[in-house]
């Protein structure tokens, strides 16, 4: 797992899949696979608009289409690291947000994928903000959610 200290403005998310690590990794870098899951609920990511060049500096582009009204959201990212089948890192061009996907072979045919989203808004990059923002974003969300009553929605 990650040994780095918690970075400022960070979101962590993990999920276990009943599938071998190689397959799960391929799903994250092959358009034919990505098209099946990249859009969240109610959003499609048509395979013809997915562009993947899995090597450092290579592009990762998608167009998300809202199923309800057809509106389109193009996304563009650049790969920072491609270490098949262990790690995949990309940076979103518009937000500067970096996503690190770590793939762990659990040894029983299952794979855990850990998503770490860092560099959230530009403002976080100031040293003062970095020094102060020691709470990871998701823990912070739970904290704030408790305050505003939104965490249980």
């Amino acid at each position, binding site marked *: 797992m990650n040994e780095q200290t918690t970075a400022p403005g960070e979101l962590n998310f993990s999920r276990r*899949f009943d599938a071998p690590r190689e*397959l799960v990794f391929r799903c994250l870098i092959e358009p034919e696979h990505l098209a099946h*899951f990249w859009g969240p609920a109610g959003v499609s990511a048509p395979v013809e608009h997915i562009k993947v060049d899995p090597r450092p500096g290579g592009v990762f582009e998608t167009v998300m289409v809202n199923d309800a009204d057809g509106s389109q959201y193009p996304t563009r990212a650049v790969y920072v690291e491609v270490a098949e089948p262990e790690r995949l890192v990309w940076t979103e061009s518009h937000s500067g947000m970096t996503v690190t996907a770590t793939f762990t072979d659990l040894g029983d045919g299952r794979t855990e994928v850990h998503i770490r989203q860092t560099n959230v808004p530009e403002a976080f990059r100031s040293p003062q903000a970095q020094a102060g*923002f020691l709470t990871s974003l998701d823990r912070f969300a739970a904290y704030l959610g408790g305050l505003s009553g939104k965490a249980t929605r």
Partner: protein
Amino acid sequence: MTLAAEDQLDATFMALADPTRRAIVARLAEGDATVNELAAPFDMTLPGISKHLKVLERCGLISRTRRAQFRPCHLEADVLDAAVDWIEESRRVWAERFDKLGTHLRDLQSGSHPRNGEDDE
């Protein structure tokens, strides 16, 4: 998200980057409080607390009544909600993506190999 909304969010996260300010926000979530009341739990001078309050006020997280002598501070829940929503939204996207990926992996391994565009028109 509009640029103004993004700026607002940046400012909110910046303001909440400080543990003292987070504690102030937590206190105000229970109800309005004066500067004196807010300063009480901290080993801090009133000007010190006032500085934090100004940061929170500037980003819109709190407001202060102009008229009352003690100018109680009030938490603007909408601004806090926007910050919470943004984080929750990111989590939701990954959760929904991974729900779909789980289904896709099951399909792949059960040999049904669904292709794109398989859905009937």
